[in-house]
């Protein structure tokens, strides 16, 4: 088993309460930082740690923080992105539910490093019960003097609020999140200006994922250099992976980056292999937005090297034969699963969640969904695959925010790797239905 930095104490009874959390070393990092470190020192440790954003894009956190504009007399804001809506991803939920004080502590440290006196946690509306968990943790932290004015006599003031969204995936995009927080419709903004210059209420703002902010706690406790020793290359530290699909042990795992895929899927320490002794067919390693990998590219890269759970190794081979670490939403498919149906399902999601500002995303997602629906139901044409690739290509890169790309990639990659299966749906729709659902009889009667 590898080291745990975030979930080390997650199994302890009562760790979601202040006393237990404190007893196990909680708020030690805040003490250390506020008493012995200047804000710039905290930033320096985060830079040294090599921590990269855990929300999906993997942008180096230290660098992002150093871009924050600091004009005189203008407030700065730190926002925690807890909108977690990417299909397959449920790691932030686990962290906030189990050990909410870790996020609160990480936010105090980060706000201190950035000089932000007001911070918000923007949480998806569907996590309604977690709002209460977080608010309880925050009020405990206020009561014990970890939040509020002049914390530990350091002169640093920090207020923290929780703000639930109304249930829109797009509000996880950082500028849509800001719009939503301002009380407006959650449409992404055109960038530049970036939030680091003009974010919440046109003031400099940093948006980070829950896990990213929580990771600042062990970084301050153990030092950035020590954190950077874990992992491989530019993928440092630990990462939460939410594993689901046809595996024996689905759940949230904290791994050291660089863990071999083979070990993660098959070892009893982790996912415990494919359920019911079936064979692996495909894997979506980083949430629904990343390209799907066929079984022969899951444990090995196209170059024949071992595929690791790291930013670089997963991206090895680019879009041709690679994927992305993304948000860590790890979905495994066994031999019985239908890629066409899965792609249709993902596309239906993006169609439903597109904000509708950009014509390619607004219209293209709906179009792809309809074509995929017809393919799945045996009404497709052989030309549909080229059409889908065409439409995906016309969306990609021509939109304001990456949701358009996120909708296009799964479709393009599914057709790249599983074209046979798509064609089979056109050529032998009945056999397909039979094999996938055994529904052929009802279908035939309906037609």
């Amino acid at each position, binding site marked *: 088993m590898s080291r745990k930095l975030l979930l080390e104490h997650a199994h302890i009874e009562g760790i979601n309460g202040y006393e237990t959390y404190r007893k196990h070393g909680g708020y030690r990092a805040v003490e250390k930082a506020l008493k012995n470190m200047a804000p710039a020192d905290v930033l320096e440790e985060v830079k040294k740690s090599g921590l990269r954003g855990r929300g999906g894009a993997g942008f180096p956190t230290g660098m992002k923080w150093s871009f924050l504009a600091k004009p005189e007399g203008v407030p700065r804001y730190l926002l925690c992105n807890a909108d977690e809506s990417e299909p397959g991803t449920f790691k932030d939920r686990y962290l906030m539910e189990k050990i909410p004080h870790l996020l609160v502590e990480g936010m105090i440290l980060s706000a201190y490093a950035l000089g932000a006196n007001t911070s918000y946690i923007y949480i998806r509306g569907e996590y309604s019960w977690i709002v209460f968990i977080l608010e309880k943790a925050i009020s405990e932290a206020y009561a014990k003097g970890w939040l509020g004015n002049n914390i530990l006599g350091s002169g640093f003031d920090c207020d923290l609020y929780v703000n639930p969204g109304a249930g829109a995936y797009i509000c996880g995009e950082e500028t849509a999140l800001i719009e939503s927080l301002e009380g407006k419709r959650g449409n992404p903004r*055109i960038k530049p200006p970036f939030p680091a210059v003009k974010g919440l209420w046109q003031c400099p703002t940093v948006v980070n994922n829950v896990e990213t902010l929580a990771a600042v706690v062990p970084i301050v406790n153990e030092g950035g250099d020590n954190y950077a020793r874990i992992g491989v290359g530019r993928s440092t530290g630990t990462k939460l992976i939410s594993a689901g699909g046809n595996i024996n042990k689905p759940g949230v795992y904290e791994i050291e980056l660089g863990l071999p895929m083979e070990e993660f899927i098959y070892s009893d320490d982790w996912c415990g292999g494919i359920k019911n002794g079936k064979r692996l067919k495909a894997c979506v390693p980083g949430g629904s937005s990343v390209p799907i990998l066929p079984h022969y590219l899951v444990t090995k890269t196209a170059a024949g090297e071992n595929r690791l759970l790291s930013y670089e190794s997963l991206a090895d081979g680019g879009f041709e034969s690679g994927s992305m670490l993304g948000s860590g939403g790890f979905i495994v498919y066994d031999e019985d699963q239908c890629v066409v149906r899965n792609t249709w399902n993902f596309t239906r999601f993006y169609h439903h*969640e597109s904000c*509708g500002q950009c014509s*390619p*995303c607004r219209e293209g997602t709906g*179009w792809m969904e309809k074509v995929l629906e017809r393919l799945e139901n045996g009404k497709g044409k052989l030309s549909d695959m080229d059409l889908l690739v065409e439409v995906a290509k*016309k969306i990609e890169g*021509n939109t304001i925010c990456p949701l358009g790309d996120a909708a296009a990639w799964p479709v393009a990659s599914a057709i790249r790797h599983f074209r046979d299966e798509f064609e089979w749906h056109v050529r032998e729709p009945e056999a397909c239905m039979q094999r996938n659902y055994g529904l052929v009889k009802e279908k035939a009667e309906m037609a």
Partner: protein
Amino acid sequence: MKVTKGSANDARPLPKLVASCQTQVLDGMEVANITSEEVLNARKGVVEFLLINHPLDCPICDQAGECHLQDLSFEHGLADTRYEFERRTFEKIDIGPYIKLHMTRCILCYRCVYTAQQLTPERVHGVIGRGDHAEISTFIEKAIDNDFSGNVIDVCPVGALTDRTFRFKSRVWFLKPMDAHRNCEKCSGKAVVWMYGNEIYRVTGRKDQYGEVHDFICNTCRFEKKALEDWTIEGPRDIDRHSVISQNHYENKTVTVK
């Protein structure tokens, strides 16, 4: 458009295509607008996307002839459609006594929303729903109660928002646009009156060569002043547009109507 050279200081091209209206001009920047294959392709794509849920009912649409979407499709569109599914349709809605909203034709450009936001202190006109199921809506079908609400008609590039006092009265290319003004307490009174013979069929704001409105005009001028004696006619309006609307208008520029 494609930025082929970032600026004098940083010559690197921008990796992605950018929107011309949103990109800051820098010294030495070079752009390819109508010469880049990539841009033309992307634009073709966008026009195709805009049209898949559009009814293409130009023959019965009041906007035909001055429709930006019609112009765009003419310039970039395919003759055929690859879309084989049912299109989005809506019931027509009256937003107050003067304005008709026909969502079926709307391309969700948000222009009327931004205009209404300028005109009214509260948010009364906006977008509800998401994606291709989004709709322009006033607050639960209430009218936009504002003396300048008619300007949303002028900014609508398609036939989604139309003038109820003009709907189905004539085709725009049969009418002669004339610059005209009147003394108005509410607005500049500078407008364009659209005439057939000596009759005024409709009144609109003045637009420049890019179709942008010069001055917002008030609802009184737009909807209620349609008698010849209401207006001082200045002369034919020079409309620099490439679509059908500019046909037939200019051979007798010197004629003044009284």
